């Protein structure tokens, strides 16, 4: 079973993404409401954590800052991170793609296809 960490400050986004991935794909979901909590959760759940779905715009530590801190921590630097953003303008897309994340997914996502989007982005066949 895949295990995914969702980091997003918006309760409804976390809830919908979690129920979608649990119900459609049968994955185990861990959630965090901030970048700092997300990094702690990533360290705690590192064994078996398959990917992180990371919101871009969050108060305090935003998604790119959270990603950079994760990259500086050898314990969790290798976990694939997918950025999740409602910013759809070209300049934002290029900036996010340049960070070195595994993929950039866009909000609003379709809850019925989110799992397949993640699988496709990460090359998962199962």
């Amino acid at each position, binding site marked *: 079973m895949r295990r995914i960490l969702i980091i997003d400050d918006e309760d*409804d986004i976390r809830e919908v993404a979690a*129920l979608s991935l649990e119900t459609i794909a049968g994955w185990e979901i861990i959630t965090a409401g901030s970048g700092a909590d997300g990094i702690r959760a990533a360290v705690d759940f590192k064994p078996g954590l398959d990917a992180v779905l990371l919101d871009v*715009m969050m108060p305090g530590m935003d998604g790119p800052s959270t990603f950079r801190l994760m990259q500086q921590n050898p314990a969790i630097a290798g976990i694939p991170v997918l950025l999740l953003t409602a910013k759809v303008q070209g300049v934002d897309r290029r900036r996010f793609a340049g960070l070195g994340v595994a993929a950039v997914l866009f909000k609003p996502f*379709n809850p019925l296809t989110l799992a397949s989007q993640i699988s496709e982005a990460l090359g998962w066949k199962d």
Partner: protein
Amino acid sequence: MSEAEDKTAALLQQVWLRNRPMVEERLGRLDRAAAAAAAGTLAEELRKEAAEIAHKFAGSLGMFGYDHGSRVARKIELLIDYPAPDAARLSALTGLTVELRKAILPDA
């Protein structure tokens, strides 16, 4: 739809109904920003708050099937997501907030 998709759709509906008071409260804050813009008194703090709400709507409404609502919210965000938008741009705000409300709460 598969059983899992049916279950997901039902759970989404539950989340939407539970969140409806928050949605209405956020729409009210957008209305207040639009009224202030129409009166030429849109303060910076209210503009920033309205831009954040529009951003959240743009990124979330489509999850619940309100794709048009997401598109309208995106227009609002682009209209006010920078300091001191001019009066010509702000003149569209009232119409867009009305359109947004109709798109997501047609029975209200």
